[in-house]
């Protein structure tokens, strides 16, 4: 990957270039906990991958490393053209602008309405009001909430709130969506709807990485599955796992 001396990407990831690449990555916390050990993985542009594993398997650390919330002790991590092992802290915001993050607990700001919650992500990147109006409306329509723009978060169901979170992740047209158990706080029907939405987004070329505990979703949506156990990748299948 071509880089300049600031570890800034000099070109957007090409189709055949990995959006995420871990090479011999290990992470041990100061407490001595070995969270990941010698992880090697490559997720290409346009892929949809589930990350599964029991509690303590290393899923959270895996996601934190991708978002550069944590730094690997050994190995190399490339995300959207950024070398995260060499990257300086001041470039972290730039990295995060290339990805959309969906949280399990939605993370909507209660005092802002739906429109403002989504627009918030665009203000951060310095978009103008016209762009904001246009893109927020588009993102809300994509998730089926075009008519709820003026509603407050507490007036929405869990599923609707998560769709607002999804619209916020999408609004800056990221190359990569990271969804950390996005169905963890919604009912099963809504879970299917959320993953269907993510699948649709993925079909349009956005890479999706989703952490989940829900084996039914993994089974029913035939996507790549990365299984972690005790900090190691124990399975990496395409087309779902068998129960």
């Amino acid at each position, binding site marked *: 990957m071509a880089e300049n001396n600031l570890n800034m990407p000099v070109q957007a990831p090409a189709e055949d270039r990995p959006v995420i690449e871990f090479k011999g990555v290990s992470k041990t916390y100061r407490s001595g906990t070995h969270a990941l050990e010698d992880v090697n993985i490559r997720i290409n542009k346009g892929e949809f991958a589930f990350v599964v594993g029991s509690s303590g398997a290393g899923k*959270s650390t895996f*996601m*934190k490393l991708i*978002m550069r*919330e944590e730094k690997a002790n050994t190995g190399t991590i490339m995300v959207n053209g950024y070398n995260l092992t060499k990257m300086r802290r*001041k470039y*972290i*915001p*730039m*990295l*995060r*602008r290339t990805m*959309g*993050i969906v*949280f399990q607990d939605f*993370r909507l*700001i209660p*005092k802002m309405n739906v429109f403002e919650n989504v627009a*918030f*992500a665009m*203000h*951060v*990147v*310095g978009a*103008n*009001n016209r762009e904001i109006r246009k893109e927020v409306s588009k993102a809300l329509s994509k998730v089926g909430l075009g008519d709820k723009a003026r509603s407050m978060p507490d007036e929405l169901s869990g599923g609707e709130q998560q769709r607002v979170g999804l619209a*916020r992740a999408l609004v*800056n047209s990221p190359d990569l969506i990271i969804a*950390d158990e996005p169905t963890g706080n919604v009912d099963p029907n809504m879970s299917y709807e959320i993953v269907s939405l993510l699948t649709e987004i993925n079909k349009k070329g956005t890479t999706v990485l989703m952490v989940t505990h829900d084996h039914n979703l993994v089974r029913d949506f035939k996507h790549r599955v990365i299984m972690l156990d005790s900090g190691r990748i124990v399975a990496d299948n395409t087309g779902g796992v068998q129960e």
Partner: protein
Amino acid sequence: MKARSFRYLIGEGFKGAWANRLMTLASMGVLVACMVLLGLALLISQNISRALGVLEKQNVVIVSMKDYHWALYDDSVKKVTEGGDQNGITPDMYVIHNEEEAKAFCDKIAALDNVDSVEYIPADEGLTATRDHFGESEKKFFDFLEEDNPLSDAARVTMKDMGRFRETVDQIKEIEGVDSIEEQGDLADRITAFKNGLFIAGVWIISILLLISLVVVCNTIRITMYSRKLEISIMKAVGATNAFVRIPFVVEGILIGVFSAGIAAGLLYFCYRVASEAMEKTFSMVELVRYKDAVLYLLGIFLVIGILAGAIGSFIMIRKYLRREGSEFSAI
């Protein structure tokens, strides 16, 4: 950062101050109290300085010159029987021979760096001034002196810095033509000591009040920040820079400071006006500093304190927060 982002963030700062209005009001209350106390301390110190200034102006040094009158009456000058005038005095017996030389002598004193003003007082004027100090009945005792004035020409000297009073008196003594110096060094020492004490007390009061102001703003911003933890975590997740996260809090801090400064200046205006009017009615001799003269200066000080405390306090707190917890958006 783009200008529109900056505008947006300033707006967010205003919204933040309004959204946390109870906390904002509480902080403003404490800041206003600090500023009023500070303003009172400054006004009191200004009034004391003014009174001391009047006292300093009265603490003049009278320098008597070695002129003809001096030669005539000074025992150290041995009069001659031949070659002198009718009083046995020759021109080489004294230094200052005429008004021109007396004025040149005054110029030498005026050239000293701590000398504020020098006024030439001819011997006749000196006698008149001395006589005027007495009542009508005593004045007649001075009549016989008019023909035979024993006073020398003199210079009336005022100084810029009373702290250098003795040093300047010594410098004057070095000038050729000085007979004697009439001075009140003790008064100058007392004024200087009092002014120094006042200055030290002022520095302490200002420092303590500044520190309190800073702590108050820090505390408000800290509480605001924790109440907006979720917002900050989302900002960080969607790629906000630290500056983007920081600016609304700094704006909020500055707003608290600016509003507090305005309120404090207004409050002080009313309090001081009432107090000064009462003082002047009770003690007719007292002439206090007009608040109007001091208001801009005080408002300026309050604004500087408010803005600095607001900006520095919020900057410190948000920096601390971002370093410690700012990037942990997935751990909330």
